[in-house]
């Protein structure tokens, strides 16, 4: 069979099955199990209404339970044990964690991750705020926003290829085709640098990619927040003689602090999961390892599920404060 036809068939099968579930389940509930007619019509309607929410929720709960809740528990279990030949499992307590903290690569990944967490959200938010403020009162602002927002649509892998070209290095004497080296040599650098292999600094070159991607996101949200600032406060400040910088830092920024926090945390979550960029650019060599890639290495290269799962749990622990904060603020909102 031609692969295109096969693809179409599988798509139809997947989507159709889903539609059929909701349609048929409702049909069955209303007409067969609890028909809204005959002697027990009223009782049946009430019963149907008791069941229906769960009918609507079932696929979603099943998907979330299976793909998010169960893995958390199972990963926790795997991180406390060791896989034995023949699918057996032995409980080893914290041995995996002990092994993990004894590895230099883990500390390298953790340190790098913390650096990423400090730098990427800060710069992406700052650039986003700058872009939002600058584009707000300029006639071509919307075009500018679209162009800065564009990297959001590009895959991390695509971005990796794009930036590999930027960081490309040729031996001295050849024409440089990487922008950064061309610039570096033009500004008086003595030899082309292979940017991605300079320990410590290379992480920053990788971070630049994520900042480049995430700035658009920060900009869009912060620009909406800036527009939401009541005009009176701004006008009052102008009347009082505030200069543009005072206006921005003393009047506008404090009023959108809440939104800045939201943007910051959202980017933080993205950073914690960052994997593709490091995987495609350096694969964790030259001291650029991050937790997500460390974990992938353990799981699929070293085939060490115990330590790999322990690494995953570390990532979970790092997001837990955000998780708690999210739930608390959602509850506050609902009241």
């Amino acid at each position, binding site marked *: 069979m031609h692969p295109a036809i096969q*693809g179409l068939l*599988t*798509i139809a099968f997947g*989507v159709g099955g889903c539609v059929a579930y*909701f349609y048929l389940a*409702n049909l069955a509930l*209303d007409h067969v199990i609890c028909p809204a007619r005959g002697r027990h019509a009223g009782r049946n309607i009430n019963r149907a209404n008791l069941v229906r*929410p*769960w009918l*609507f*929720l079932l*696929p*979603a*709960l099943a*998907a*979330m339970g*299976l*793909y*998010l809740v169960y*893995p958390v528990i199972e990963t926790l279990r*795997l991180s406390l044990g060791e896989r034995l030949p023949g699918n057996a499992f032995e409980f080893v307590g914290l041995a995996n964690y002990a092994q993990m903290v004894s590895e230099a690569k883990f500390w390298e990944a953790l340190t790098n991750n913390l650096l990423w967490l400090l730098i990427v959200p800060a710069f992406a938010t700052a650039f986003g705020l700058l872009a939002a403020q*600058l584009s707000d009162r*300029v006639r071509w602002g919307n075009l*500018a926003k679209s*162009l*800065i*927002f*564009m990297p*959001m649509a590009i*895959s*991390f*892998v*695509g971005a990796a290829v*794009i930036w590999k*070209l*930027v960081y490309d290095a040729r031996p001295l004497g050849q*024409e440089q*085709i990487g*922008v950064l080296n*061309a610039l570096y040599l033009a500004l008086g650098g003595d030899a082309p640098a292979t940017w991605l292999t300079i320990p410590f600094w290379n992480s920053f070159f990788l971070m630049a990619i994520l900042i*480049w991607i995430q700035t658009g996101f920060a900009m*869009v*949200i912060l620009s*909406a927040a800036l527009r939401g600032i009541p005009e009176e406060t701004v*006008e009052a400040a102008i009347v009082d003689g505030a200069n*543009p910088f005072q206006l921005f830092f003393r009047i506008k920024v404090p009023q959108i602090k809440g*939104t800045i926090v939201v943007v910051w945390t*959202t980017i933080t979550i993205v950073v914690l*999961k960052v*994997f593709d960029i490091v995987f*495609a650019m350096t694969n964790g060599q030259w001291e650029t390892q991050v937790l997500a890639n460390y974990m*992938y290495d353990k*799981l699929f290269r070293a085939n060490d599920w115990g330590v*790999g799962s322990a690494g*995953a*749990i570390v990532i*979970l622990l790092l*997001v837990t404060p955000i998780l708690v904060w999210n*739930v608390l603020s959602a509850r506050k909102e*609902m009241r």
Partner: protein
Amino acid sequence: MENIVGQKPALRWAVHGSLLALVLLWVFPTAGLLVSSFRTSDQISGSGWWQAMLPQEQNRTLRAKAPDTQTVENGLHVIEGNLFETPATITAWGVSSRAIDDFAPGDTAPLRKGGTVTLAANGDYRFEHTEAFTGKRGQRLFVTATSPPEFTFENYESMLFDERNSEGIGQAFLNTFIVTVPATVIPILIAAFAAYALAWMDFPGRALLIALVVALLVVPLQLALIPLLKLHNTVGIGKGFVGVWLAHTGFGMPLAIYLLRNYMVGLPRDIIENARVDGATDFQVFVKIILPLSFPALASFAIFQFLWTWNDLLVAMVFLIDATGDTTVMTKHIVELLGTRGGNWEILATAAFVSIVVPLAVFFLLQKYLVRGLLAGSVK
């Protein structure tokens, strides 16, 4: 208000200037890839892409026609022709790799095996020898030539239509669609029903479920890799599209429910209650009223999920493992190219651009909805 910037021309120029600088900085890397994908591999390695519009001076090694094309004129054996496929101007040339710029255009140089060669600035050459030229391949000539800027569709042609490459990339492109379409539609459908239940139906445990959804928003999907891989293998969907669809459905679910519920809660209560009073069942209310009214929210999540599944690498690498390569998606294909053809920029740039064309098109066409969805999700 509007004149705060306009009051001081210096400040206005500073604003325009810094915004322009920011935009250029942000567009520059992508532009590099786009321009590179239209250049030949010689040109890409010969000069930076930002010089693509300028004439280029390059050192090239070119081969004249083979000796079997020689003709005899007045007792002299002659080979004639032109070195270039596209016009270029020679500034210096040589017959040996050790002295590539010994001669000026129009000069006549002696050959090592006897005979002479004359090379004009436009690349016309003429070999002359009293004896017959021997050997299978043509003589090498080393030229320093300036060629006008040149752009080509060849990379795209060879990537998309040449069977050696296109089979891989065409298949990967198709696979990405097969992964993406159901992985976008199914979660929306499932999440819409769930969001409706959480927004408009009253049942015990509702608040708890909403809290659960919010909590799951931040659970990293890395945790899911091993447990679910084990599960998929046990069930027997370890190596196919079904597993990836399910994974994307599960991972996208919290955001989908969260966005859609937030939107649906804001719909006017009157319409829904009137419909109920008129005897509509929940299913009818959902399909006929809620779904059409929620179109903006559905669209924005659809775009998100589409971009996310199209651009995903990790889920595809873990749940779509297949040694045959029949189910490879675009992102994986490019990572492989990065490994094996890391230096071939014309191939990499073209493949990368083919893979980002679809999300970019979606992005620019539907940006309005994307922004609306972002705002609904993050700011109240």
